[in-house]
């Protein structure tokens, strides 16, 4: 009996299994039906490209007048965006002062960027956000430091959209936590009230809450107290979001093992100390990803203020293309606005997915 002491020479894998060909075989042509699907999809992509590229790029009019856009053979009229960009982004804000909302948006984006870096999470960041609020008030209203006063009825466009979402989130967050705690509490009266509120708001569309805010709030206050449209919409959003955040927080509270509550009781902590020191820090960290999803919804939902006549980003764009000479170029305008919304929402959702991975890494060891 002979024993083979040398191993057989290692052969290279066949050319058809590695590299580009191997990838194609593994991912696009791994079975008969998949090959057919690939060919169908490819035909679809080619069809879309040959329909869209000439319109959007090759024949597009990048600058010029409505006349240029209406010339025969002209494709997309991106000139409308150059012409109407300022109005779309800033609404009816005093034209010469529009650098102020632009600067405010820049500051906001900078701080949001900083907030995405987890190394910077801490007290300083919270103070930076507080400072940001004051900066926004000064920049948007003016009236101090030599800035001319701009009434908030003139606010519009992207700053209005951002501001309404951020204020709704900041104010609704603590309300949502209190509602969630109330819903989980042992006290029947508190629990009943919280359940009724949450289910009522979650059972009706946002439009009806906005209607309610705009129709009923003026009636709620004694004669002489007037609440303007912006504040009314803001109250509506906050009421709506707080009910949804309450459910998100409740999911987190339910996920905390009973042992944590009992351990806190054993230490002799009172209810509020138990929640503040033991339960909420764990629960809130658990629900960061669904919370970001709520924020994304809120950001998209602010577009509904068009119903009660505020000029947010979407409405500003819509008003801009109502200008008769530019009237037929609404598609280009909608695409531009969609891109702005997409940039914000997509970044937030990718961030939330990354955060979810990071957070689960920390607990799944």
């Amino acid at each position: 009996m002979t024993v083979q002491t040398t191993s057989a020479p290692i052969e290279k894998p066949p050319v058809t299994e590695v590299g580009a060909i191997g990838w194609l075989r593994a991912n696009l042509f791994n079975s008969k039906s998949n090959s057919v699907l690939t060919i169908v999809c490819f035909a679809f992509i080619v069809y879309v490209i040959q329909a869209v590229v000439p319109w959007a790029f090759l024949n597009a009019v990048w600058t010029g007048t409505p006349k240029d856009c209406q010339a025969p053979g002209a494709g997309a009229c991106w000139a409308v965006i150059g012409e109407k960009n300022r109005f779309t982004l800033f609404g009816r804000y005093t034209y010469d002062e529009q650098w102020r909302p632009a600067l405010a948006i820049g500051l906001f984006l900078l701080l949001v960027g900083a907030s995405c870096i987890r190394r910077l999470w801490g007290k300083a960041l919270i103070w930076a956000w507080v400072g940001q609020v004051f900066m926004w008030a000064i920049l948007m209203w003016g009236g101090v430091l030599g800035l001319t006063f701009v009434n908030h009825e003139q606010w519009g466009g992207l700053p209005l959209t951002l501001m309404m979402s951020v204020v709704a989130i900041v104010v609704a967050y603590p309300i949502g936590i209190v509602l969630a705690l109330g819903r989980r509490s042992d006290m029947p009266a508190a629990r009943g009230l919280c359940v009724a509120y949450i289910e009522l708001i979650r059972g009706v569309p946002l439009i009806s809450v906005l209607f309610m805010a705009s129709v009923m709030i003026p009636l709620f206050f004694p004669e002489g107290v007037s609440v303007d449209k912006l504040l009314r919409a803001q109250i509506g959003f906050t009421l709506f979001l707080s009910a949804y955040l309450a459910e998100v927080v409740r999911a987190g509270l339910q996920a905390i093992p009973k042992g944590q509550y009992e351990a806190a009781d054993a230490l002799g902590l009172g209810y509020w100390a138990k929640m503040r020191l033991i339960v909420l820090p764990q629960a809130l960290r658990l629900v960061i990803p669904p919370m970001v999803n709520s924020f994304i919804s809120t950001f998209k939902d602010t577009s509904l203020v068009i119903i009660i006549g505020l000029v947010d980003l979407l409405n500003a764009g819509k008003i801009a293309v109502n200008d008769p000479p530019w009237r037929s170029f609404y598609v280009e305008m909608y695409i531009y606005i969609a891109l702005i919304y997409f940039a914000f929402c997509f970044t937030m959702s990718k961030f939330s997915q990354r955060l979810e991975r990071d957070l689960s890494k920390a607990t799944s060891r």
Partner: protein
Amino acid sequence: MTDRRSGAQVAEKPKTAFWNDRDVRAVLFQILIVLGVLAAGWYLVHNTLTNLESRKIATGFSFMEREAGFSIGESLVPYSAADTYARAIWAGIINTLVISVIGIFLATILGTVVGIARLSTNWLVARIASIYVEVLRNTPLLLQLFFWYALVSEALPGVREAIRIIPDYVFLSQKGLRIPHIVANDIHGWMFALFLGGFAATLFWRRAAAKHQEATGKLRPLFWPTVGFLFGPAALVWLFAGAPLELIKPVLRGFDFQGGGTFSPEMIALLVGLVTYTSTFIAENVRAGILSVSKGQWEAARALGLPNNRSLRLIILPQALRVIIPPMTSQYLNLTKNSSLAVAIGYPDLVSILNTTINQTGQGIEGVALIMAAYLTVSLSISGFMNWYNKRIALVER
């Protein structure tokens, strides 16, 4: 965590003062909350009543009996401008329900297809599906509705150049989708009755097949008998009666089509927008549901000798559905609630009609209350039904 003292300790003097006792505190706290809410409520109601009085607005629902005076673009219930507000609102409720039911049906199918496509081993299919999902769920629904509405009402050809989807029968133009009407025939009633009878027969056959399998271990065919029972007798009767089918075709006369049924541009835009938007969320639920069933389940089903379709139906789907159903419920509710955005593109749903009513009568409080009551009823019934269904399929733990 109430502390109940045992009999021996009752005689002892409590160590804490009564205002530090947990039970007493809980009661006091709740009384305070209720009083606070009542006081705030009373304040708001009082102000509202004073304001209404000074503005001379009458409260109550008596306006519902008055003549509405506005017309509705499309309605399933017969309605004219001379009818009452109550009837207009009823037409709006029906329109909302129609949109929601059709939307839920289509979004479920589309969402399931896209969700499965995202899991496809085919790289291109998975990529296209994920681009579809990311683009649609990261832009506001309202913007998408405006986009579709503009596309339907302006980019589609005029009536004369209408796209002939099925020549002579189905036309698509700026004025919407025109389809033929079926003229009712006595035979159709009989066919429907036979269809219902077939449904009962199917249930009976399935139960008998299950008993047969339990007794002998042999499988009986299910699919073709089901099809046969449901449609066979009705089709036979139809053929014997001489295949009566009379269609009213839409015919171009003057500036518009005459005859046949219509889906208005508003309805098409609203449906396309709602269905595509909601389908992305449903797709994500379906994907998560399928991913939650482990591969071992497929292998175990195959090891038991179950054919592919039965292992999907009996082993995989019941487990995946347990994950899919609860979030699906909230997507159905969202679609129903989002249908209220119809007001922005002029489809006469409940919110849009009540909005007109509020503007004409000034009965804001009643209008908002009606919207909320209607949606609450729909929401609670959908979630009630889905909870019942969810319980039926839930895991029974010992």
